[in-house]
């Protein structure tokens, strides 16, 4: 381990004391922050040359690569996606749990396991394909009891998983459990867990989709994933359950391999990288490829440490009991700010009026940049990402609260959305194909659409045909809203702004995004 200066140690100690004394952080948030600060003192990774100049800056000061607070000595993969179906079938020796035999035990077992699933947030980023997991037990009790149990289950999750980067999946086929889950999330109006409905043009019935849309217009979830598209990209058959593929949607909207996850996620700040380029050609052929190379080698170093040195896969019961497999992990090669990069480069070429998402030349430059990144990733090989052919999975990262003038992934900046929703959709359909590990667009919807949920259904079904990967809708007047991928209650942001404690740490991120990311100013459709 490398030495560090006493100056840095003392600066960190000051920060730790601030955490201890913080009036707004809850106890759990303080413990997590203390651990992150302790980790920040470790220096064990073989960092690639040139990384520091790209990474160790503020985002407003030209930072080009960001590792999203993953820490200096990763002690677990960033995102872990346990094989809950196997757990339900076999139980767990470590947790001394036999396989559940009814709905009471099924829910109890899941709630126990959640407390033992690590992640970068210390909360489970994936809580399971809940319709399939509960369906075998759903007829053990009458419907009213099933509803009540699932309601308690979801309340328990919201009050104990204190971070809304936690995701449940349902669909694509309708089930009784799936319908009860949609009823319950509509009633509860809670931020946790996030919920995705996998949508398949043949398997998802109109009634099931309509139930999903009604819940979404009420409480901003579920979001809708293009099941055939993900299913093609993630090999492995029906690991999640019949017709449900071998992928899950976890955290914000991250497509990840089932029974594995993602070792790491770093992101390129494309707009800041553009500031180092003379023009579009210089960007695509010289500046960007250099940064891509450094970030890939940085991710390689992180992955190597997790796999070869951390001991996680040798010692954690999830791996030992076959609930996760080292060879079902990949890594997420993220990016933000495509719009800002394009607009900056267009301005440098004297075409500032040609904006990303509006002008064909500008949007085509966005496609060209994505092709450069995609081609780089297809060339780069990592020995531990075998599940994705030895390559990383591209990810359109949703941004973090401190991002200023940085649009998530490939999104059109808020305030510049095309006047017509269809024009907006036609831009984003050109970018969703690049991102198996997640991208998504979010549309607040005028309340009059509550009378016509089929309007949203038509848009979802059309979008799937056009190769759009993932869409979220929420009602312009609902309390639970989607910030960038995760959910927050507006009423909780208000509490935090008044200086009160709030239970979910994502509320603070939502408050930041409200001010820095203008997320309350999205164009209402």
């Amino acid at each position, binding site marked *: 381990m490398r030495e560090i200066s006493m100056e840095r140690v003392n600066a960190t100690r000051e920060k730790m004391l601030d955490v201890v004394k913080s009036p707004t952080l809850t106890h759990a948030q303080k413990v997590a922050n203390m651990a992150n600060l302790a980790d920040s003192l470790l220096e064990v990774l073989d960092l690639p040359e040139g990384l520091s100049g790209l990474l160790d800056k503020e985002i407003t000061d030209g930072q080009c690569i960001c590792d999203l607070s993953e820490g200096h000595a990763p002690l677990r993969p960033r995102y872990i996606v346990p094989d809950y179906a196997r757990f339900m079938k076999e139980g767990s020796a470590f947790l001394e749990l036999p396989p559940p035999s009814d709905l009471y035990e099924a829910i109890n077992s899941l709630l126990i396991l959640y407390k033992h699933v690590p992640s970068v947030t210390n909360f489970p980023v994936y809580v399971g394909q809940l319709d399939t997991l509960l369906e075998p037990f759903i007829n053990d009790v009458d419907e009213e009891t099933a509803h009540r149990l699932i309601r308690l289950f979801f309340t328990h999750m919201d009050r104990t998983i204190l971070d809304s980067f936690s995701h449940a999946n349902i669909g694509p086929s309708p089930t009784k459990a799936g319908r009860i889950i949609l009823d319950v999330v509509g009633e509860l109006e809670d931020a946790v867990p996030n919920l995705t409905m996998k949508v398949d043009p043949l398997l998802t019935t109109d009634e099931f989709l309509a139930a999903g849309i009604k819940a979404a217009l009420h409480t901003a979830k579920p979001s809708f994933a293009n099941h055939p598209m993900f299913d093609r990209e993630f090999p492995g058959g029906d690991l999640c359950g019949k017709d449900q593929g071998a992928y899950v949607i976890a955290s914000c909207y991250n497509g990840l391999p089932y029974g594995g996850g993602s070792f790491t996620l770093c992101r390129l700040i494309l707009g800041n990288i553009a500031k180092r380029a003379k023009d579009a050609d210089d960007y695509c052929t010289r500046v960007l490829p250099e940064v891509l190379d450094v970030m890939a080698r940085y991710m390689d170093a992180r992955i190597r440490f997790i796999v070869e040195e951390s001991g996680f896969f040798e010692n954690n019961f999830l791996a030992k009991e076959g609930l996760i497999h080292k060879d079902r992990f990949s890594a997420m090669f993220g990016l933000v700010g495509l719009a800002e990069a394009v607009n900056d480069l267009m301005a440098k070429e004297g075409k500032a009026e040609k904006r990303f998402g509006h002008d064909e030349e500008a949007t085509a430059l966005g496609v060209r940049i994505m092709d450069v990144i995609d081609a780089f990733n297809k060339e780069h090989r990592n020995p531990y990402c075998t599940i994705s052919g030895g390559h990383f999975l591209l990810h359109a990262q949703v941004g973090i609260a401190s991002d200023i003038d940085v649009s998530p992934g490939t999104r059109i900046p808020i305030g510049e959305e095309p006047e017509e929703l*269809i024009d907006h959709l036609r831009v984003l359909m050109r970018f969703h194909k690049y991102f198996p590990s997640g991208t998504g667009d979010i549309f607040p919807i005028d309340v009059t659409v509550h009378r*016509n949920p*089929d*309007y949203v259904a*038509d848009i979802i079904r059309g979008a799937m045909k056009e190769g759009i990967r993932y869409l979220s809708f929420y009602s312009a007047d609902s309390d639970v809203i989607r910030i960038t991928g995760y959910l927050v209650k507006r009423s909780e942001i208000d509490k935090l702004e008044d200086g009160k404690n709030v239970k979910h740490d994502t509320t603070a991120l939502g408050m930041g995004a409200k001010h820095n990311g203008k997320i309350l100013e999205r164009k209402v459709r």
Partner: protein
Amino acid sequence: MTHRAPVNRIIRFSSVDGPGNRTVVFLQGCNYNCRYCHNPETRALCCHCGDCVAHCPAGALKKDADGHVLYAYEACVFCDACIRVCPHDASPRIRSLTAKETFEEIEKQIPYIRGVTVSGGECTLYPSYLAELFRLCKELSLETLLDTNGTLDLFSRPALFDVTDGVMLDVKAWDARVHRALTDHGNGDVLRHMIALAECGKLHEVRTVVMPEMVDAERTVRQTARALAPYLHLYPVRYKIIAFRPAGVRKEYASFATPDPPYLAYLSDLAKSEGMREVILI
């Protein structure tokens, strides 16, 4: 065979003009003179007086050598200045489109739309155009809906009838005298067409605008619901009860009263008590 119609506007995605997501085409010109019309600028065709030209801030309007007002769609900023100054309840912002040209603008929304609705003005003033447009739509499996005042006898127009999936029809008043006072026309044809459409399952929706000072809404809602009840098994006709609102109406009618919510709720219950299953208040 190529038919044209004056197109006022095309809304590419609409959630309020029939089931699901639809493209809506608004045609210009109307044979009624409803006092409460909330888009009176769609009523008349442009008479080329040119009063609007000087008011256009975008230079999208000009007069040619023959004295015709020309409209440049690409230059238009849709500020509505021309409509506000028009003394004839018309709009210069009209494109004369063939059915094929109209269809090409609808087609761009596939696969996001399930159908198309043609509205107005009064769209059935252009039956040959509609027949051709809907035939093109049906070839790509788009649902076709007409939004009409019910004056056209669709049964006398088989080419249009056959390619029309459904009709949304206004019952402005049940009493013929009230109807005449409101629109300058009687309602015998409208009510006859309504029943004939319901009998063949093509009536999708009826609507009544509630303007208490001019319309006996209670009688209209009761009688309409009662008349349709026998046919609801053929198609579950929806009843939309719309509160009069002064926004957009001609200024001589803007001072009419809006109905209060309890009265609207009463009308909704009334329609339901007569057997209507789906009633929407707007």
